[in-house]
């Protein structure tokens, strides 16, 4: 197996910027990623990325992609990484189909939606269960749906769904809705919305698609007929696959100002780390830093 100088895991804003820096340094590297764009592609409106007064996530990612592709990089797309592990001086990167190795790795895998962890959730993913209201809300036109999570993300999903769904159940595990007051008022004023606090989802069921959910409030168990379940309970760093590096209590990979992790040779950048400010522009900057730091590291070793 060929051992490369560098592997970049992830191709969101952080990974792609790292790719451009690594390419300009003429490093011997590949990028391995589930998709191109990461979370950035899901942002509907971006108004704080320098150079663009307004741009959608999809358009910005298209620009990033064009820039990256101008360097003719070797990007292994649709290859989610399963394991990153350091063995001696070599770092092994394993995907479902293949195995790669390198002297240095940059982890830029971002964050993924948090899951409920209830029966039926995995089975009905993309068959009624969704983690992206912006993407999937229109599929439920005229249908009855449930939104799980009473924070701002949940309320935002409810507000999008009010316009198109026939009925929206908002379920919150804790005793009250926690989002912004302005949004709470809008949600409460809609006669389409029914709010359940102190309520836990126990099961998602259906046939080919979702038909309903079973919920529990104290001793009371209830079945709600819905065809859509929008899970909006936050996100978590996509860091489980990285073995042996120090993480904080949130699961974020701990880095120093040079984007170094606790294991020499493994660098990390952007939303998967404990860096302050989970922003596209911050992730890009961190990606640049990680690539420069990896370059220095490899030069010192050589």
């Amino acid at each position: 197996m060929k051992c490369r100088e560098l592997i970049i895991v992830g191709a969101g804003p952080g990974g792609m910027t790292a790719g451009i820096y690594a390419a300009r340094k003429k490093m011997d590297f590949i990028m391995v990623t589930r998709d191109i764009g990461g979370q950035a592609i899901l942002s509907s409106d971006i108004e704080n990325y320098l150079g663009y007064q307004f741009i959608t996530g999809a358009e910005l990612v298209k620009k990033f992609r064009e820039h990256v592709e101008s360097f003719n990089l070797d990007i292994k797309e649709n290859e989610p990484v399963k394991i990153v592990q350091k063995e001696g001086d070599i770092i092994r990167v394993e995907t479902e189909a293949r195995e790669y190795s390198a002297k240095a790795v940059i982890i830029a895998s971002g964050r993924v939606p948090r899951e409920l962890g209830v029966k039926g959730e995995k089975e009905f993913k993309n068959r009624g269960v969704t983690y992206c209201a912006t993407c999937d809300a229109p599929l439920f036109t005229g249908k009855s749906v449930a939104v799980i999570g009473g924070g701002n993300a949940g309320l935002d999903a409810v507000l999008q769904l009010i316009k198109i769904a026939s009925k929206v159940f908002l379920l919150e595990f804790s005793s009250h809705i926690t989002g912004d007051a302005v949004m709470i008022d809008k949600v409460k004023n809609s006669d389409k919305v029914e709010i359940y606090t102190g309520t836990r989802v126990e099961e998602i069921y259906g046939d080919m698609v979702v038909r309903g959910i079973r919920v529990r409030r104290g001793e009371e168990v209830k079945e709600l007929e819905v065809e859509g379940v929008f899970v909006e309970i936050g996100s978590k760093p996509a860091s489980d696959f990285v073995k042996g590096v120090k993480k904080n209590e949130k699961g974020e990979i701990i880095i120093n100002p040079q984007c170094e992790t606790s294991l020499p040779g493994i660098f990390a950048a952007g939303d998967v780390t404990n860096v302050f400010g989970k922003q596209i522009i911050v992730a890009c900057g961190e990606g640049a830093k990680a690539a420069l730091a990896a370059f220095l590291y490899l030069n010192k070793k050589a």
Partner: protein
Amino acid sequence: MSKKVKVYTTSTCSYCSMVKAFLAEKGVSFESVDVTQDKNALEEMVKKSGQMGVPVLDIEGKIIVGFNPKEIEEELGL
């Protein structure tokens, strides 16, 4: 001969725009249906792909879920 391509989309989905832009760039003609406007098309898509996520491509019976340039290229022989 060029294959018949049908794309199931919604207006708000980023990957749908990317699939359509990709096909257009490659000079592939295709039929695009917005499943939020057409209930029958939505049912048809769920039946074909066994799921509700968009985009879905139907290339003469070969179903591709999501934006997967390599698979599309292979299927169309691009």
